[in-house]
């Protein structure tokens, strides 16, 4: 078995690392050890410092204090290239592909296969990329340019890029945030194989069940400080080892102290004093067994969680959004559906099924070739987002970096971008009303619990989840009648996820029609009154809440059993 022993030398480790950005202390005296053959999860709320930790491991950030250890020896990483040369492959939270290069060129960026005289061997690169995609079960053409890829496809290209380098350490910052169940399963299969071959894995996800499926150990951060590092058990607290050879987890779990210190003296732990004083707070934990999902949530948030899917039943009203036979050549065909006031309709499907594309056409950022869209009975103009907005439509787009935010612009201005048409009360007599802008931004930042230092800070300095909250704020502030949300909780932590769900539910109760696209199937099932399913550009099923199960939705999403079995 490749499981680490307490005295084994970690492949990659951090010792007592602190990192500040101005007055924000993103990491405080954090230690972390990654062992060969072990999948290690990093958990924590939005802004807890997870991405910062990863960037420190990858040489993007230099720690203010503390050291990075490679094979037990202190190293100074001068940049991502250093980390790569040391065998550390990193998938960052936001995809950073070169839009004008092909997918294959992106996968092999910086280490293209060569022919004689140093010429790049494009054919070899294409073949290798195609093989990687086949292994991941991804249907992507290596020769197509990266521009225009959906966020999920971008993420998959990043994954292929990391896997292609045969790294000893694989670090993944929310790689699954935009992926649906089947892509996640494929990814985990590949990662498990790598781990069994001796790679060390560091994995971040806000979907806790994924952490339990993939990892043996979890380290939790809160406000930049280490809370604890524990072995994982069964999510429900039973002692059932998962597949992939983690049978030892129960046994080695018992090496941790069950005394009050919450496991911080474990082999890969914090070195004792690192956790904040309230760390013991979350330590209703694991004596001889591993951590459960509830334990983990308590570690992350410092309290028990409210219900994750607080869907309330509301009376359903008139048709608000009426989409008729909408077609965009080669993208989606003959899509018809309605969303009523007070209703939350889920739109499910695999990556590439055309869900986001339909949403974009309805909102007007893309044109449609045939069909019509009506809001409250009034037709929308093809390809005119400003008219859609005036009619009360809002679209929270999937790709916050490219479509949702202007990264260099302040939080305040980003929130108010949707008010420039004068609908948000921030324009008076044709001029911007700075005070109204400020209070509008502040109001929504507080309601969505955005964690920031100053509203004037560039939105790009926020953590990924907090950026997502700003995108939500920007659109919720328009008080829409019809709200289309595309991956609304991508990268949002469990606590806030429940908050966003409560918000959506409350909006529906107030009569807003909500169309929710999400790759997180439990989220769709938990929130939707009705589930629409798309498969290869067509609507294949419409399933009422009562009949919507993982099985029925997945069957329609993969093209097995269509409308027939919906009822």
């Amino acid at each position, binding site marked *: 078995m490749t499981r680490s022993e307490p005295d084994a030398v970690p492949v990659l480790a951090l010792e007592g690392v602190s990192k*500040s*950005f*101005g*007055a*924000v*202390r993103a990491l405080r005296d954090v230690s972390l050890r990654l062992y060969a053959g072990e999948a290690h999860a990093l958990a924590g*709320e939005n*802004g807890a410092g997870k991405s910062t930790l990863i960037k420190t491991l990858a040489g993007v950030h230099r720690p203010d204090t503390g050291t990075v250890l490679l094979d037990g020896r202190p190293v100074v990483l001068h940049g991502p290239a250093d980390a790569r040369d040391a065998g550390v492959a990193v998938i960052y939270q936001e995809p950073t592909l070169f839009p004008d290069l092909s997918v294959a060129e992106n996968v092999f960026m910086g280490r293209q296969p060569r022919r004689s005289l140093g010429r790049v061997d494009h054919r070899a690169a294409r073949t290798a990329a195609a093989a990687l995609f086949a292994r991941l079960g991804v249907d992507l053409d290596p020769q197509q340019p990266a521009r225009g890829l959906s966020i999920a496809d971008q993420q998959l290209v990043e994954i292929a890029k990391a896997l292609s380098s045969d790294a000893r350490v694989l670090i993944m910052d929310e790689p699954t945030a935009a992926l649906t169940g089947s892509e996640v399963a494929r990814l985990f299969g590949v990662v498990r194989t790598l781990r069994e071959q001796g790679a060390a894995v560091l994995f971040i996800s806000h979907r806790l069940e994924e952490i339990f499926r993939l990892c043996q150990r979890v380290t939790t951060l809160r*406000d*930049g400080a280490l809370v604890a590092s524990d072995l994982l058990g069964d999510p429900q607290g039973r002692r059932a080892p998962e597949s992939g050879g983690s049978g030892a987890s129960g046994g080695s779990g018992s090496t941790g102290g069950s005394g009050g210190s919450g496991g911080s003296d474990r082999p890969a732990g914090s070195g004792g004093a690192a956790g*904040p004083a*309230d760390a013991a*707070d979350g330590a209703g934990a694991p004596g001889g067994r591993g951590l459960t999902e509830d334990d983990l949530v308590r570690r992350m*948030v*410092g*309290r028990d969680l409210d219900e994750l899917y607080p869907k309330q039943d509301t009376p359903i009203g008139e048709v608000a959004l009426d989409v008729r036979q909408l077609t965009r050549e080669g993208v989606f065909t003959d899509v018809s559906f309605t969303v009523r006031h007070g209703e939350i309709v889920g739109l499910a499907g695999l990556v590439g099924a055309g869900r986001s594309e339909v949403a974009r056409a309805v909102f007007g*950022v893309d044109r449609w070739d045939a069909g019509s869209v009506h809001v409250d009975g009034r037709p929308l103009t093809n390809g005119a*987002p*400003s008219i*859609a*907005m005036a009619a009360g439509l809002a*679209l929270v*787009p999937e790709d916050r970096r*490219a*479509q*949702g*935010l*202007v*990264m*260099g*612009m302040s939080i305040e*201005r980003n929130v*108010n*971008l*949707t*008010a*420039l*048409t*004068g609908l948000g009360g921030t*324009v008076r007599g*044709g*001029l*911007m009303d700075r005070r109204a802008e400020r209070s509008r931004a*502040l109001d929504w*930042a*507080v309601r969505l*619990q*955005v*964690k*920031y*230092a*100053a*509203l*004037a800070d560039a939105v790009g300095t926020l953590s990924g989840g907090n950026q997502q909250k700003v995108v939500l704020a*920007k659109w919720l502030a328009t008080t829409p009648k019809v709200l289309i949300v595309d991956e609304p909780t991508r990268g949002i932590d469990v*606590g806030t996820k429940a908050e966003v769900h409560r918000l959506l539910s409350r909006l529906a109760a107030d009569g807003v029609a909500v169309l929710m696209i999400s790759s997180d199937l439990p989220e769709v099932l938990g929130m939707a009154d009705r589930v629409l399913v798309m498969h290869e550009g067509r609507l294949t099923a419409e399933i009422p809440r009562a009949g919507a199960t993982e099985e029925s939705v997945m069957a329609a999403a993969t093209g097995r059993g269509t409308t027939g079995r919906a009822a």
Partner: protein
Amino acid sequence: MADSSPKRAARRAGALRWDGVVGVLLLVLLLLSFGFVDGFGNALNLSFLIGNTLPIALIALPMTLLVVAGEIDLSVASTAGLSGAVMGALWNAGMAIETIIPICLLLGVVCGLVNGLLVTRLGLPSLAVTIGTLAAYRGIAQIVLGSNAVTDFPAPYLDFAAGRIGSTFVPYAFLPFLVLLAVAVVVLHATPFGRSLFAVGANEEAARFAGIRVRRHKLWLFTATGLMSALTGVFWALHYASARYDNATGLELSVVAAVLLGGIDFDGGRGTLGGAVAGVFLLGGLQNAMSLLNVSAQSQTVVTGVLLVISVLGPRVARQIAARPVALPVPPAPQTSPGPSERDR
């Protein structure tokens, strides 16, 4: 609970804004020139300085908005030349100046519209489009006027364009410029239109997703730029009492240089009109001072070139300095994260 004031103060103190830097440089230049350059400080020279800089300043106003929105117009000087040439030709043909000037301005609108339509409808890059129309408009100007020079415009107009208020340093034409400047400042920095230009320049796709009518905004900007260029062409012909097809040749480079020097980011999305105007007069003042000091034309060109390079580097360096973390004795207090729960004991 948003901004704790010590943090903000520190942020302010740490921030180094390039438009501020240019303003200070302009002040330093003026003080030095007053002190050490013979003939700089007298009212007549100052009025020359301002009058000669006005063409650059006029076009810099719309150019600033255009560059903020991520576009550029290199045909401005040719539009000005064309406008002057048409003015001369129509004057020779005996038309009244009161009719000619509106025609010239209309022509500028058309020139700008052509640029704008090529960029927004056909999706061509504005750099390429306006290099093309730079040549085309100048060519038309030459066809219209040939190598003639028209000089005999009515005296009141010539006096207005070249004269100054009494014996002060203020040219008459400076007053309408101030009005236009005020309008441009309000449009860029206080209206929704101006606000959206920053978003368009920084991330056009996100701007589109926010319902901003990107193409229409850009069309307006190109049209306004054409109009201001034509106005500048009229002013130029009157100010120098000479309408020729090659009026204002090369002026586009001075305008772009001044705007970049003023801290308008060539990549779009960043900058202030105050900075741009400071950049214009810094460049104009420097040239004036150098002429008085008998610096050769070649050396002046070198200085201008060096300034251009600085203008591209400077703002970036300033931003990096501003972004550098400042050590602060402020306890880290994350703003809105839920605190640890109070546990019953």
